[in-house]
């Protein structure tokens, strides 16, 4: 072996870590897990079903037919192929209603998470980057907002004003942004000290440019991935609001209202609460499996295990 050869082999010493973009690595690592794939297929299957389902099967979620009330799902005595998952106390098709419920929950979950993500990260990044008084003030506001649990804030505001999908989303965003602000700020704090930020500064890049062009593409995708878990949380909160009666108002069905209305019939028509509950649980399971896999992938990356 020649000495030259010896020396060049040692060039490869630094590991691959940190070379591929953080988020891509994370996504690829997560995709490798079975949980993520199961979650992905369950979740997107349900999304497709909830978007296309009602028109595909031609059943109306709101059409009342008192004569058909309390039909059980097929497979149970009295079940009927016209209503695969049975009907509710007004004879409406539970399958269609649950799908609409899913759609609403998803819409609210997604929109509110996107909203809180954008708002929170923007505030967090500014606080972390600018520092000083701006940081202090923004963070105290964040802490304050964070000190009110989501549900309490939602109940307080929605309970005393008439809830609309818009107001629900607003309240959820209001309650949810601080967590993102905190994460974005702490990542920004450590990122701000990183060499590439200093390098950009030395090149003469403005603060805004550094934040948007250099830092944001680096730190936001991993946070966004973990936000998937929040979609599930927001969906649960939407259901809870519906359950307490301060969610989206009838006749639009939501998981919460279907469950709440079916509670009375638990004994003689168990499926009214069970079907939407299960569907909600399954879709949450899908999201949580995905989000969980992404979160673990992120933790592993941050801890330096590849």
């Amino acid at each position, binding site marked *: *072996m*020649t*000495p*030259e050869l*010896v*020396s*060049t*082999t*040692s*060039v*490869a*010493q*630094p590991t*691959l870590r*940190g*070379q*591929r*973009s*953080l988020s891509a690595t994370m996504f690829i690592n997560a995709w490798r897990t079975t949980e993520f794939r199961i979650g992905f297929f369950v979740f997107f299957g349900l999304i497709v079903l909830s978007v296309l389902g009602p028109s595909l099967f031609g059943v109306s979620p709101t059409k009342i037919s008192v004569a058909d009330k309390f039909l059980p799902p097929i497979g149970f005595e009295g079940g009927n192929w016209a209503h695969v998952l049975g009907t509710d106390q007004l004879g409406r098709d539970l399958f269609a209603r649950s799908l609409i419920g899913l759609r609403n929950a998803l819409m609210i979950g997604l929109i509110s998470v996107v909203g809180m993500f954008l708002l929170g990260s923007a505030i967090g990044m500014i606080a972390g980057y600018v520092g000083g008084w701006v940081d202090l003030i923004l963070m105290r506001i964040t802490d304050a907002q964070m000190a009110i649990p989501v549900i309490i804030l939602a109940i307080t505001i929605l309970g005393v004003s008439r809830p609309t999908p818009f107001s629900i989303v607003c309240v959820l965003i209001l309650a949810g942004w601080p967590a993102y602000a905190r994460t974005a700020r702490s990542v920004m704090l450590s990122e701000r000290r*990183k*060499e*590439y930020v*200093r*390098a*950009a*500064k*030395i*090149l*003469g*890049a*403005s603060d805004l*440019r550094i934040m948007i062009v*250099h830092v944001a*593409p*680096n730190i936001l995708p991993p946070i966004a991935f973990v936000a998937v878990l929040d979609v599930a949380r927001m969906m649960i909160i939407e259901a809870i609001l519906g359950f307490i009666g301060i969610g989206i108002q009838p006749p639009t069905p939501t998981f919460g209202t279907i469950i709440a209305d079916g509670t009375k019939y638990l004994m003689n028509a168990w499926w009214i609460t069970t079907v939407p509950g299960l569907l909600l649980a399954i879709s949450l399971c899908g999201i949580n499996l995905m989000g969980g896999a992404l979160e673990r992938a992120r933790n592993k990356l941050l801890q330096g295990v590849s």
Partner: protein
Amino acid sequence: MSEAHPILRVRDLTVELQSAASRRTVLDSVSLDLHADEVLGIIGESGSGKTVLSRAMVNWVSRPLEMTSGQIFYHGEDLRQMPVRQLQVLRGRKISYIGADPTSALDPTLPIGHQIVEKLKSVEPGISEADARKRVIETLQAVRIPSAAERFNEFPFQFSGGMMQRVMIVDALVTSPDLLVTDNITQPLDVTVAAQILRLLRDLQAEYRTAILFVSSLLGVVNDIADKVLVLANGRVVERQSMQGILQSPEHEYTRHLVRDMPRIWEAQSEVPAVRARVNSNDGREAILSVRDVSRTYATKDRSRLFGKQYVQAVRGVSFDVYKGDSLGIVGESGCGKSSLSRLLSRLEEPDSGKILFKGQDVGGLRGTALLNLRRGFQLLLQDPYNSIPSHLTIGRTVAEPLIIHGGHSKAEIREKVAETMAEVGLGPELAHSLPVGLSAGQRQRVNIARAMVLEPELLILDETLSALDQVEQAKLLGLFEKLQVRHGMTYIYISHDLGMVRRVCSRVAVMYLGRVVELAGNETTFFNPGHPYTRALLSAVPAIEHRPYDAATYLLEGEPPNPINIPPGCSFRTRCPFAFDRCAKDDPALLARGSGDLAACHLAEGGMPAPGMSPAGLHDLNQVPALRSGTGA
């Protein structure tokens, strides 16, 4: 101790790396003997299996690595066959291991003393708490940790790397083991601290008569301690000789190469090109950068007082000029303020006082476009090649970024300019459209350089820019810098603690201590006739295989630089200076010109210090060691 019964006898040890697809031999039939009171050095390039070998000695080989054959006899007993419990006790008590990373070897949340006591009680079950404590404190004192009884209760994070390495030595020696395995223990340390640790280990080895298996990747370090050396290449022992033998007649090709390429400071001719070799003097050249009495203080929280603040004086009254086409080196121990100074120079931060003039223009008050224009003129290259370029932009885009920021270029112009610059720094045009994924450190550093060069700066500041690279890559880049300097007449400031490199490329050297320049001199003067005892101390600590003109007995510093928070009055170096006298406590020496026009801040700069022992280049005489030891005793 008889030659016949070595403490450690390794026979045909083979370790394989088992991965899903393949299996690879990491250690190939390694055999070695280690006798009592002997220090066996193991050297080899990175990845040659040194760490694996040293860990195998304590039976710490875990998947995906696997010991597939061979025996490790400790006093004749095979460690590989030994029951776990027995091995457990043996490991802490009779065989000790010290790794390369002292700061993470102990539980970060418990006081160090308690953890050593815990270990002591665990391997010597009979010992009482009080006895254990006493023994630990005594050993802490033995490694010269000041106020050991108090530091006993301090936490790992409150110790510097060097102190922590001492703590690990205490942890290893507190049970008086007869075998000590050390893996690259000086690697994370500053040169002076590393030299201290080596000296300490030598002393302790003599006192405890411990056999040491000393693993290092630096020939100079092994040279300072080992009796015999074993050279490892690709998992195989390729050479075993006495230390002297290795240096005088290396047999294996790798070893020869190693000995030959070891950078020399005093034996070699300076390679600084003649253009730049002109010493100091303002022989009419314009100073491109003038630093005038610049200071910077940081405020931090003081935990010992209510709402208290501490002031860290990171840079104190630094002044120097850099001339066009020149290369200035800035050296000093860790924490002396080199990086802080570089931040001030590149105007990432503003100095609290003092002025920085770039081509006569005060950098301080600049804002907006004026600042932007200024930035064209000088650039800073950072140390970490991995973190300093964004991973989500293509290389071409990264190099183009400064042009976009500074504006005024058409798309075509930018493309052309980027391609040109990339070619100049040796990046293939095909890289322009790829992400930095998969680039080697050297290539990344080239991207970095290209990004700085694309603005055609006149001054480039390099803050430890090359220290993350291996020697070959370093040499190539140094060549590139020289080429660029010749072609564009660029000026460099190298910030580094690698004295060998500074010796090679810088025409002038500024030595910093506690935020202040204590010596500013030409290359030759700095290395052959330094005017400040601190410079001599630095030189005495450089691990080398050549004779050092400044012997460690006289110059090697004890302890670490004082805290930049409470800088004592008078000369700030006097607390560690071997020549300190009354005046030093009162008068803070100014940076004054010495005879040759070089500057030094010492009352004795013009005489009073022993002349450097310029003995002819030769081997370090091992027999000197005990003498050295007695010289530094208390």
